[in-house]
């Protein structure tokens, strides 16, 4: 695996944007179908939402911490793209770092700071509660998430994402580390506060961390959240699903197909299941997910030692 030329830095956000757009359109289609209206109208629903947010006036609140507020909002798409730097597409990544897995995790962790700042900034109680919920959720999902990442890296014997893809030339990691794969997807959803993990933006909080955001701020924050979901889901392909490997078609097509499939499942899952409450998820993560992922890591480590 190699590194793409410098101009790929510009291509990456565009590609991620297309992915995010497709995900939003699919989500809108699911919503429209559930409401019993024709699905065809949902394709342009994301575009209409974008235009509406672009012309909506920004909301200002009393005694807001504007510096942290704006920083938090802008940070969400930025960290998503930064985490996406190590995503391989058919054998090339923008940057195939030697510590790619750690880089990915470090960048997505920035979401903790970003969402908290976005919740803190407007000086509003419900929005701050949303920020706190995200931190609580982060503390619950991060350890299982790290163990899932470590499991794939252990099996490949490298932290380089390209190396992890190469290690799956014989057998995809999802086959012999299904627990890590499922936990990874759950934590990817939690990271992008999507689906059952959207309590930080909960309706009971009138929108939570995003509650006071309007206009272009809201577009950047929620758009960045979709980018983050796409990046986190796309990373499951090189980590567990063999990257670009597959018959007949070129590698990048397989990467896109696999990403689209997993993304579709995740978006459907998010619509299908109700929001999980923080105290329930925290206990589930600590009492069930962490032991399971440690066991999974142990099995993989033993296999690597014996082999």
């Amino acid at each position, binding site marked *: 695996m190699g590194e793409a030329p410098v101009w790929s830095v510009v291509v990456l956000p565009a590609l991620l944007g297309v992915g995010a757009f497709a995900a939003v359109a699919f989500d809108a289609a699911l919503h429209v179908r559930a409401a019993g209206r024709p699905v065809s109208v949902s394709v342009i629903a994301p575009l209409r939402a974008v235009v509406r947010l672009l012309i909506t006036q920004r909301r200002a609140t009393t*005694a807001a*911490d504007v*510096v*942290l507020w704006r*920083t938090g909002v802008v940070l969400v798409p930025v960290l998503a793209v930064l985490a996406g730097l190590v995503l391989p597409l058919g054998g090339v990544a923008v940057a195939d*770092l*030697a*510590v790619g897995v*750690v*880089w990915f*995790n*470090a960048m997505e*962790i*920035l979401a*903790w*700071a970003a969402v*908290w*700042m976005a919740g*803190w900034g407007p*000086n509003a109680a419900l929005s701050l509660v949303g920020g*706190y919920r995200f*931190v609580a959720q*982060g*503390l619950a999902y*991060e350890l299982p998430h790290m163990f899932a990442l470590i499991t794939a890296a252990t099996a490949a014997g490298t*932290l380089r994402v390209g190396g992890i893809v190469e290690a799956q030339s014989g057998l995809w990691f999802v086959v012999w580390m299904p627990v890590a794969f499922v936990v990874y997807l759950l934590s990817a959803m939690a990271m992008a506060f999507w689906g059952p993990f959207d309590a930080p933006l909960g309706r009971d909080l009138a929108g939570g961390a995003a509650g006071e955001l309007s206009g272009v701020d809201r577009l950047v924050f929620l758009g960045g959240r979709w980018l983050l979901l796409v990046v986190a889901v796309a990373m499951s392909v090189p980590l567990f699903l063999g990257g670009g490997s597959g018959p007949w078609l070129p590698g990048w097509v397989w990467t896109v197909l696999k990403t689209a499939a997993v993304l579709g499942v995740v978006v459907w899952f998010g619509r299908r299941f109700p929001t*999980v*409450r923080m*105290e*329930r*998820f*925290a*206990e*589930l993560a600590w*009492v*069930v997910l962490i032991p399971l992922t440690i066991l999974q890591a142990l099995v993989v480590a033993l296999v690597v030692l014996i082999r």
Partner: protein
Amino acid sequence: MVTVALFWLFAVGALVSGFLVFWLDSMARVTFALLASFVFVAAEVILLGLAYLGVVIVLMMVMEMVIMVVFMIMYMMNPAGLMPMAMYHNKTGAMALSVGTFVALAAGIVLVDWPQRTGAPPPDPTFALGQALMGPHMLTMMTLGVALFATIVATVVLATHRGRYDRLGDDLRATRADDPVGGGIGR
């Protein structure tokens, strides 16, 4: 040339954001100024060729600072910076001490006659670090880990006002724990 320019950029960034910690008057801003300072230092570590350590510093510091901001604001009488607060007491003394310490350390770096480098860095610093931690320093790391974990457990035990008898009854035979907040696995 680029490396030197980046070094100065990150160095000045770390210094300025470190100074902002004592300049700003809101707990939230102070925390993230400190985080920015740590991130600049992490960038310097990456410049030294220690990519793993640098990226891990970013990873750990973001988590730490986000947790810290929650706790700091919890314990602050005036968290939002709506009224001015200061991170220091005895302003002139604190300034003299901290600036003095910085100047002394920086002067030391410039004035000390550093020895010539012997040997070369390992081809893969991450691997070398892992071997050092898991090889010769294994006992230290294990002791450290157990000590940290014991500290965490001990502080939680000391901090909580509810024990297992409160949760499961005097003879510990309750089928469901009596918890103020229900958990996710229905115990």
